[in-house]
């Protein structure tokens, strides 16, 4: 039994189903990556696990707890962190205020968590007083990840964290994500850059039309000729 698991998820945004008995799971300290062609339901699968759309069938388990009925807000309180693909920072607020807002539900002193985030992303410490809207794309993503880490989640979900950033910045972000995973957090992400993402993944899910097509370790998927031919461009 995995730490976070979306089991046989079926559902959509009202109307036709997008997910068809799709199963995604991730362990603590591991990185799971969802890849697949456009419109395969990658983001939808992740949003379903975060409670942003209702499931007709299937369930979501976090640890021993069935969280299928919880709202996204309650899932944050239960220990899930979510980084949306777009509009994932408060652009008019400073970097530090963004992190403070991430910790909004915490009543205790969160200065140590903020220090950890600054250790992970040193550039943010330098720019802590600058509005997040004035930062570069890669730095913004760091703010977004940092904001989600402020609740000290046990699961971190990232919706295309490297969308629109340069290859160098992408490599750096993946390095940071590996560091986060090393602290024992389960990481689930959806990625367009499938090859690079699978290279750091402990587990990969290839979705096609809302169903699981291939599930294996990242390494094995990269080596699988069928996956290479169909989804990784040879």
């Amino acid at each position, binding site marked *: 039994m995995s730490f976070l698991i979306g089991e046989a998820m079926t559902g959509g945004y009202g109307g036709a189903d997008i997910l068809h008995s799709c199963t995604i799971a991730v362990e603590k300290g591991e990185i799971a990556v969802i890849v697949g062609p456009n419109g395969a339901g990658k983001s939808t699968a992740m949003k379903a696990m975060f409670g942003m759309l209702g499931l007709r069938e299937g369930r979501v388990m976090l640890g021993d707890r069935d969280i299928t009925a919880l709202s*996204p*807000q309650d899932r*944050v*309180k239960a220990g899930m962190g*979510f980084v*949306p693909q777009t*509009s*994932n*920072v*408060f*652009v*008019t*607020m400073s970097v530090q*205020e963004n992190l*403070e*807002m*991430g910790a*909004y*539900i915490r009543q205790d002193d969160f200065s140590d968590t903020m220090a950890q985030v600054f250790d992970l992303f040193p550039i943010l410490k330098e720019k802590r007083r600058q509005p997040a809207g004035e930062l570069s794309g890669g730095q913004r993503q760091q703010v977004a990840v940092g*904001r989600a880490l402020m*609740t000290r989640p046990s699961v971190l979900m990232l919706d295309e964290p490297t969308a629109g950033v340069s290859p160098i910045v992408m490599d750096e972000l993946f390095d940071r994500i590996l560091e986060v995973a090393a602290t024992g957090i389960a990481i689930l992400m959806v990625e367009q850059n499938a090859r690079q993402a699978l290279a750091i993944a402990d587990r990969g899910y290839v979705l096609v039309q809302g169903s699981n097509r291939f599930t294996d370790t990242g390494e094995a998927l990269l080596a699988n000729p069928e996956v290479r031919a169909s989804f990784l461009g040879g």
Partner: protein
Amino acid sequence: MEGFLNALVVFANFVFIPGLAYGAQIALGALGVTLVFGILRFSNFAHGDLMAFGTMITILVTWWLIGMGVTLGPLPTALLALPVGIIGAVAMALLIDRLVFRFYRKQKSAGIVFVMASVGVMFVLNGIVRLIIGPNDQRFADGERFLVTVRGFREYTGLAEGLAIRLPVAITVIVAVIVVAALFWFLQYSRTGKAMRAYSDNEDLALLSGINPDRVVMVTWIIAAALATIAGVLYGLDKSFRPFTYFQLLLPIFAAAIVGGIGQPLGAIAGGFVVAFSEVTLTYAYKRVLEYLGFQPEGLVQLLSTEYKFAISFVILVLVLLIRPTGIFKGRVL
């Protein structure tokens, strides 16, 4: 030299000081409008009548206090009644939100639906105020009238022209500075204030961060109603209270909020002064000022008759929307 000083005194007395007070009153009103827009995302047309409602309660309490023999000495008794007026306006704003706006929030209605609902609220509030206090002019400023009198100023300076600073004007400026400083401190540094800014910036992310939208909305109404009452009472002390005038104040207040950049508190203040000074400078007859400067103008040298002062707000509004729709401080586009 003396001519220049006299010209300056006339200008200060009839343009600068009245403009300063009027600007502060408009700015306080526009702050409420801009906060409601930033958080609730609609233009609240009932703001002028919320001002009237809070002011009306303040006036009734003022009369009652005076009847009981309680006054503030040289200061207007209305300042003592102001907290009660604020509480009344806050209660009314929260009641309206509960009865009207919450319904549309749950429906996730379009912005225009909220605006239309607020127009309805405006008429109802307007009716309530007229039913209770009547449609006529009410004066409720007691205590000293002047901080600096014309005669005192003349005797002190030896100039031909006198400068008067009426007490309500001085109170307006002082209260406005205190209120604005407190509001900015709150928005900038308090936990709730930051949550409000976060909610205004990115509603979805604010919800993801666990910010309680109901609480943010409630605090916004409390602040908006308090600001509306303070602005209304200051305006009433400075001039007089008449329900219809307060309804009309909506125009310069909206102009100010939009000129400054709607959703931007700093912009509301800048916009308030831009609108107020435009109104005052364009409708003042400069004959006397020019005479002291050595000119012999034939007419009154008045650009616009005072009847057109609302037209000035309109023109500013249109110009801003045409040239820079985001306003001075880059607010949202309506």
